C-alpha cells in the first residue's frame, strides 16, 4: 500500500483547502524558504496522531491552526486527511482505500477519523501499530535531523531497530 492523497485545510500555512496527489514512486516538494514545505511533512506526522508537539515545531494545538495575517483572518480549525491506497492489502484493514483524518480547534480539542467515521486516537494508534507506522522515527525525517540517527547513543539506536522489528 502507499499514500494516494493528502488534503489540508487550515493546517499551519495551508489556510486554503489544498490537495496533494502523490506518485507511487517519488514526489518532490520544492519552493522558497518559508513557503510551507516542512509544514507538509509536519502535517503527515500530525494526521497520523502525533502528540509530541516538539516534533511538530509547535507547543500546543493552536500552533497547528492557521494564525492569520494582515490580509487574511485566522482559521478556526485545522484539518488534514490522508488517504492510503490499500488495494494490495498492505494495511491490516479490509478496505481498498483507507483514510485517516484529524481536526483540531482553538479550544485545544482534537478529533480523529478513520474512513469518515469518528474514532478515538487509540484506534488510529492501534491500526498504525500493525503496519509499522506508529513510531515514525525512520519514516519521517525532519529538516536538519538526518544525522540525528547517528548522534543517538548506542542504546537509543536500539530503539530504531526495535521499531523496525
Amino acid at each position, binding site marked *: 500500500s502507499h499514500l494516494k492523497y493528502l488534503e489540508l485545510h487550515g493546517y499551519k500555512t495551508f*489556510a486554503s483547502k489544498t490537495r496533494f496527489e502523490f506518485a507511487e514512486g*517519488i*514526489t518532490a*516538494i520544492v519552493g522558497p524558504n518559508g513557503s510551507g514545505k516542512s509544514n507538509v511533512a509536519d502535517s503527515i506526522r500530525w494526521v497520523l496522531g502525533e502528540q509530541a508537539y516538539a516534533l511538530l515545531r509547535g507547543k500546543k494545538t493552536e500552533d497547528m491552526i492557521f494564525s492569520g495575517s494582515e490580509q487574511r483572518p485566522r482559521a478556526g480549525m485545522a484539518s488534514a486527511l490522508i488517504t*492510503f491506497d490499500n488495494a494490495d492489502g498492505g494495511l491490516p484493514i479490509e478496505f481498498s482505500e483507507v483514510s485517516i483524518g484529524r481536526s483540531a480547534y482553538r479550544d485545544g480539542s482534537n478529533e480523529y477519523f478513520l474512513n469518515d467515521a469518528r474514532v478515538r486516537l487509540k484506534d488510529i494508534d492501534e491500526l498504525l501499530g500493525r503496519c509499522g507506522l506508529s513510531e515514525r522515527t525512520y*519514516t519521517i525525517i525532519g529538516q536538519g535531523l538526518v544525522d540525528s540517527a547517528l548522534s543517538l547513543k548506542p542504546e537509543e539506536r536500539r530503539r530504531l531497530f526495535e521499531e523496525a*522489528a
Partner: protein
Amino acid sequence: MQNAFQKTFTAVAEEFPKIFVRLFGGGSAKLALTDTGDGSGEGIDITAKLPGKRSQGLALLSGGERSLTAVALIFSLLKVSPTPFCVLDEVDAMLDESNVGRFRDLLLELSRQTQFIIVTHNRNTVQAAQVIYGVSMGSDSASTVISLKLDEFVAQTPDE
C-alpha cells in the same frame, strides 16, 4: 521481543554495508552490538571506513559524510522492514554533486518498494521525481501549491 530485535538487527547489519558502499562509491561500514553495561540490552555501534581511508568512528566524519551515513542507515532499515511511505526533508542539503547523484540513484531504486516524499532544493534530486509540487507563499501568508512538470521546474530555477 529479543528474537524479533535480533532478527532485524542481523538483517539490517547485512544490508547496511552494501548500501553504504553504493552511496559512497566504495569504502565499507559495519554495525555491531555493544553491551551498554546498564542492562538495557545491547546498543548499536556504527563504524565507517570511507573510500581509501582508515576505519573510524562517527565523530570524525565530515558534515556530508555524516548525512550520507545516516541515509545509509535509514535506507537499510527501510529495505529490511519497509513502511508504506517515507518522508525526507532536505536530507541532501550538505551533499556535494557526486554524492547527490549516488543518493538519487539509490532513491530511485528503493522507490520501487517504498514511496518517497522528498523536500529538496537540489535539482539533481528533483529529476528523480515523477510528481513535483511547487509551494509558494502568498501575500496573505498562506501557502499555495501548484503541480509542476520537470521542464517547468528546471526553467524556473536559475543556474545555481
